[in-house]
């Protein structure tokens, strides 16, 4: 028996591995560690299915300290960042967070990220596997008067699930006042925390930036609550796939652009009109002409999962490729995300995916596969 290396490519080692603040904590709690994004990270504790279900029903604690946390300061820092991001950063209010994209000259996606305006800086969270490339790109293109600080002493935890709100509020009452995509400064046991109400599971929840030296005690305090269990990267992946959220390096990369990726919402109206960001011309061309292929969701008939790399066919001819796929625990069936030629991308289009020579019926499905349950502000 051997595990196909293709299927676990994302867990490939980048030697040497650095230790994250919760390394020993994961091991002590039975986390099975794998190499991911240059670190040893827990892929699972008791099992992916159980951890996935726990997060959908209660609250799961994820260590995402491998992600890059960046702080930008300086005169007109928002104006400067708008040259690199297609979103409305100038219009981003204090204590608000937005999803955005780092684009290259050709509109290719260098990374997807979260950006927030804090009282003293603009704070950005970028993917772990891309953070050093991002930093290089940003330094090259940022005006000299803007300072970027890689906050590599900070840990980042995510608490996700329907009971996350009550769980976090029991430690830090003020967090109950946050709505989806709002953020704020809090303190816990004398440590400064930056908390946003957001995540990568489709559930209500939080992402909490805190000093590395506080991470163990804070994780212990959360996991002492009946509602909270630690959750590994395996369930993080199955949860985000069900939520229809792309994984950088798999579902999106420099070969694709925001419109085809179904991430056009990250390009704000004003920025479309005014431009002034890398890739603007190409993005406008895709808006006008339509993207040649598009990121779609697929439901797969039967029980056999179609995984990354599986060919997508229409009438026997290749029209695309699966970029993420697996068994969806909450859906109870295999699902996938992939790119297909625009002519075959409409919801309901019946296609086929090829798995080990077998052709499985796959239907283009709306995403998310499991409804989002964000704690949105009622307007």
């Amino acid at each position, binding site marked *: 028996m051997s595990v196909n290396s293709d*299927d676990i490519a994302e867990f490939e080692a980048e030697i040497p591995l650095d230790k994250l603040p919760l390394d020993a904590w994961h091991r002590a709690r039975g986390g099975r560690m794998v190499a991911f994004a240059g670190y040893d990270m827990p*892929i699972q504790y008791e099992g*992916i*299915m159980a951890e996935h279900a726990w997060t959908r029903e209660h609250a799961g604690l994820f260590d995402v300290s491998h992600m890059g946390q960046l702080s930008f300061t300086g005169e007109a820092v928002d104006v400067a960042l708008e040259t690199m991001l297609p979103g409305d950063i100038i219009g981003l209010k204090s204590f608000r967070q937005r999803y955005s994209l780092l684009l290259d000259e050709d509109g290719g996606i260098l990374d997807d990220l979260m950006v927030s305006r804090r009282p003293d800086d603009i704070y950005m969270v970028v993917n772990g596997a891309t953070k050093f490339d991002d930093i290089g790109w940003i330094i090259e293109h940022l005006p000299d008067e803007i300072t970027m600080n890689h906050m590599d002493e900070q840990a980042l935890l995510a608490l996700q699930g329907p009971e996350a709100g009550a769980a976090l509020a029991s430690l830090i009452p003020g967090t109950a006042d946050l709505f989806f995509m709002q953020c704020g400064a809090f303190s816990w046991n004398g440590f400064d925390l930056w908390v946003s109400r957001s995540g990568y599971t489709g559930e209500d929840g939080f992402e909490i930036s805190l000093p590395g030296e506080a991470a163990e005690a804070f994780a212990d305090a959360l996991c002492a609550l009946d509602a909270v269990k630690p959750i590994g990267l395996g369930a993080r992946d*199955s949860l985000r796939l069900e939520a229809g959220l792309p994984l950088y390096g798999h579902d999106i990369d420099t070969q694709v652009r925001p419109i085809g990726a179904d991430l056009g919402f990250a390009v704000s109206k004003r920025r479309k009109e005014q431009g002034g960001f890398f890739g603007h011309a190409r993005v406008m061309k895709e808006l006008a002409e339509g993207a040649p292929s598009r990121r779609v969701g697929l439901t797969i008939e039967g*029980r056999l999962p179609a995984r990354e790399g599986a060919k997508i066919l229409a009438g026997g001819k290749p029209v695309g490729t699966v970029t993420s796929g697996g068994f969806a625990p909450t859906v109870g069936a295999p699902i996938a995300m992939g790119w297909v030629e625009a002519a075959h991308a409409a919801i309901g289009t019946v296609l086929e995916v090829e798995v080990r020579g077998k052709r499985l019926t796959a239907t283009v499905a709306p995403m998310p596969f499991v409804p989002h349950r964000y704690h949105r502000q009622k307007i």
Partner: protein
Amino acid sequence: MSRYFTDEHEWIDVEGEIATVGITDYAQEQLGDIVFVELPAEGANFDKGDDAAVVESVKAASDVYAPISGEVIESNGALEDEPALVNSDPEEDGWFFKLRITDPSELEGLMNEKAYKAFVAGL
């Protein structure tokens, strides 16, 4: 009946010329939650080391090799409806397929239970 083990974490029960093949408890533990098992068709002929089955966990697909040469006489249909049997009872009800052994001498290089336990302990 004798039980043999391979370093690819398969077990083989041999009764006369019939071998029943499955994956070990250690293997299912490593794979995690199993969601699909692709089994060989009756009548398929395998040489030792051929890809014989595929086991899909939530995270990855893994090949199961024919531990010895033979002809498939039966696959475990129960795994189609309940692939999680491989997790809950890997070394009994979670068996994969039965082979009619073509070359009994191939069994000679395999491990017994004690040797396999020592092998796993060293991993």
